[in-house]
């Protein structure tokens, strides 16, 4: 593993890597030239062969997504999902601020493969510096003739526009993103029709994550076999892992999938171990929506399959946050509940009401007025929001239940103890004030 050669992050830290000149001097914009020499379908086939699974959280194969586009379409739109909003994920931020041309190149190749005329980069509103960096890079690419009419002096034309969001987690859901691009509230759409058939402005649309698209130039350049040769067979290709919290070297690291959470925390070329005096109490290994691991579960492999064995929702964004022994799990519980309570879009009943209710309960528990039955109530509410697939239109509801459910289940004794040690009569007094 130590010999792993970073690809996606190869330009990070390189002086001037944001500029076209430096990017090209390091081999940039060669893949797109190669791709433009192939037929679009050939490009799709290579990406399909590489089994490039979406890096945004759901893990759906990008090439398969592209092949859902109707054959007889006249217009196609590509949306780049740069609405990275899942705490504690920041790998797309790193990609965009360190190596914007890599994303642009990946976008051009993917737009060519899908025969898209316009690519919209939906960038979350919190990204200001990244917006200016990426927009400058796009301006440069236009000036060089890599974007616009007849790019690279060929037949293909492509416009790239950045569309800035304005603070809504749910706009990272692909149909919420499309609605938001249309100038509406980011309410996810009901499917079918799927975006590939009827998406943005009712046209066939592909939505891909920044990291997914950033992989594409390398697949074209090095071939599908290179890509599938990295990592376990079900989770191939280089992957970005984020690590944050009280570790020595919080940051974004590239590795093959299948590394363990423990490696991510401990390895010198990654998290570098816990900060002095800090011990692991819990880890959210894949973005908060995937759920939490206890300190005993750090051998979980970070790939598309293993998280299921630890009652987690999935790999998610592969962004881990470490909770140390000094952090009260009631605070973590409240933080999770507040996040989903604030970010639920309010469309589906279970999610709208359930997240708000869990937030109320968690706030009360954190304020030292919890009841033991509140823990069961939280579990049941979580189950009622996500007891079966299909309960809500998008995945936010499922994502909201996993952290709550896993915190309560895996840290129940701590929570119970905290509740038991509350001063007598406090719950009644608080409830009296509330009502």
């Amino acid at each position, binding site marked *: 593993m130590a010999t792993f050669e970073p690809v996606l992050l190869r330009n990070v830290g390189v002086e001037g890597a944001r500029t076209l000149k430096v990017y090209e001097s390091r081999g940039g914009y060669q893949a797109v030239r190669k791709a433009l020499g192939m037929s679009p379908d050939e490009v799709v086939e290579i990406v399909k062969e590489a089994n490039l699974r979406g890096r945004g959280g759901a893990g759906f194969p990008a090439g398969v997504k592209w092949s859902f586009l109707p054959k007889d379409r006249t217009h196609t739109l590509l949306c780049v999902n740069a609405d*990275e909003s899942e*705490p504690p994920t920041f790998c797309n931020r790193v990609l965009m601020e360190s190596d914007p041309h890599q994303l642009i190149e990946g976008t051009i190749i993917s737009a060519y493969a899908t025969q898209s005329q316009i690519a919209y980069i939906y960038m979350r509103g*919190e990204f200001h*510096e990244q917006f*200016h960096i990426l927009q400058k890079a796009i301006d440069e690419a236009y000036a060089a003739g890599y974007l616009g009419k007849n790019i690279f002096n060929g037949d293909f034309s492509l416009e790239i526009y950045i*569309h800035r969001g304005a603070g809504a987690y749910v706009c990272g859901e692909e149909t919420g993103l499309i609605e938001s691009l249309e100038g509406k*509230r980011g309410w996810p759409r009901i499917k079918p029709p799927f975006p590939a058939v009827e998406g943005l402005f009712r046209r066939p649309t592909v939505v891909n994550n920044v990291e997914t698209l950033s992989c594409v130039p390398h697949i074209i350049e090095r071939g599908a076999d290179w890509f599938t040769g990295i990592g376990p067979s079900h989770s191939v290709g280089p992957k970005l892992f984020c690590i944050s919290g009280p570790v020595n070297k*919080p940051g974004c690291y590239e590795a093959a999938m299948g590394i363990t959470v423990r490696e991510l925390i401990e390895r010198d070329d990654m998290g570098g171990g816990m900060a002095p005096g800090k011990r692991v109490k819990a880890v959210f290994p894949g973005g908060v929506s995937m759920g939490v691991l206890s300190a005993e579960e750090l051998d979980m492999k970070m790939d598309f399959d293993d998280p299921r064995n630890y009652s987690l929702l999935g790999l998610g964004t592969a962004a881990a946050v470490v*909770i140390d022994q000094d952090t009260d799990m009631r605070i973590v519980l409240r933080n999770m509940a*507040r996040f989903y309570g604030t970010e639920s879009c309010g469309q589906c009943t279970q999610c709208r009401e359930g997240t708000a209710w869990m937030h109320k309960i968690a706030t009360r528990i954190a304020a030292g007025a919890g009841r033991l039955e509140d823990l069961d109530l939280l579990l049941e509410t979580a189950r009622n929001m996500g007891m079966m697939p299909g309960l809500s239109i998008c995945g936010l509801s499922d994502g909201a239940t996993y952290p709550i459910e896993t915190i309560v289940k895996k840290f129940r004794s701590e929570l119970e103890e905290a509740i038991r040690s509350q001063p007598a009569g406090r719950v009644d007094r608080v409830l009296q004030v509330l009502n």
Partner: protein
Amino acid sequence: MSWKTLDRNQQAVDPDAPPVLSDAIRDRIRSFFDRYETKRAVLLPALHIVQNTLGHVSWQAMAEIAELLEIHPSDVMNTISFYTHFWTHPKGEKVITVCRSITCEVMGGSAVLDELKQQLGVDEHGTTTDGRYSLVTEECLAGCDHGPCLLVNEKMHKCVKPEDVAKILADSGNDRLSMERSELFDVPAGTSEHALSASSSGDGNIDTTSDVREMRES
């Protein structure tokens, strides 16, 4: 029951008031029309533009945007209220956005927030009496590798400790970006960067802000 009935028949916008969107703002918004198939899709860019130049999106601004994009004012209100970044009432010159997500909270973000509240003398969503700062919190700013973090307008401050707060507030350039700006969106009104570019004409960035200056002077 102390519920009141809000009267929505009342005009939120004075029909005789002069327009708040200058021709320059309107042209800027129109320049986005080519990018999208529908005018409605220009709504988010338009709201950003208006907020950057006027500081907030007033009822009248919403009505004028609606007219420009050929949609109903309620459609603008619908969209604007869904997103957390837009202000429908005046805010401070600089907005401090404190991240409150899990990493920042674990790393001590709430102490930073408390310190800010104390030093500014405002609560969340409050604006200081001198109008210089508004304080808000946001879910994840995607700066977890250097939490706790906060934004002063567009500028990210990393690994902030409570004891850093005073220094950040004292720095008049605390919102200045270290990279070159794209001219696609205006410098937010009221920023030090704006003041800077206004004083040193000849800088490539100031073309877009002249209308702001006029408006601020009037």
